[in-house]
């Protein structure tokens, strides 16, 4: 595809509801990243995949957050029992091979609002 796509673009959830956010990386990109961006802040790292392997999940804020990339392409970020503090923009990025000086290409993000 032309770029990283994410769906849905906007999601409103009631507190306690489970949500699933989808990311389609650039075709052929090995590395995939999830970031969380709170209002007025920069993106903060959540987790990183190389192909289907989740190599780093140190940024996930709690065990309610779960990410997967079972076939090494599309990824899903799942948030269980959403809380108001989960309200943020969730950004997905991909890079060709995850090399140290590679650029990450970002999708437009999913804006999650938990009421």
């Amino acid at each position, binding site marked *: 595809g032309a770029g990283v796509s994410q769906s849905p673009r906007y999601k409103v959830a009631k507190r306690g509801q489970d949500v699933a956010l989808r990311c389609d990386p650039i075709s052929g990109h090995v*590395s995939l990243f999830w970031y969380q961006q709170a209002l*007025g802040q*920069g993106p903060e790292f959540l987790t990183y995949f190389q192909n289907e392997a989740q190599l780093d999940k140190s*940024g996930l804020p709690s065990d309610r957050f779960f990410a997967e990339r079972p076939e090494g392409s599309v990824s899903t970020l799942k948030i269980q029992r959403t809380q108001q503090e989960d309200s943020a923009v969730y950004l997905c990025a991909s890079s060709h091979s995850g090399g*140290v000086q590679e650029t*990450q290409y970002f999708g*437009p993000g999913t804006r999650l609002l938990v009421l």
Partner: protein
Amino acid sequence: DQQVKQNSPSLSVQEGRISILNCDYTNSMFDYFLWYKKYPAEGPTFLISISSIKDKNEDGRFTVFLNKSAKHLSLHIVPSQPGDSAVYFCASRADYGQNFVFGPGTRLSVLP
């Protein structure tokens, strides 16, 4: 504890003049630095990068300067154009890690 700081939340510049956006970092292990630009309702877009082995990188109207001893980098845009109005994020990465650490961003407004 913010490892990447952008102390100016906003900056206004007249069209045609120079815009200078600043970024400071604390982690001496960072060795690759980038600037991203973000328009509303879009994801960040890569602008320019610099490796720690250099002190300057130029791409058209955009130049990034790195001062490793001061742990400081800056982005110069000259001449500034109204289309440059956006939020600019500084990001850094250590050679042992994969993820970027972002600053909080500076909102640049270029006035016609």
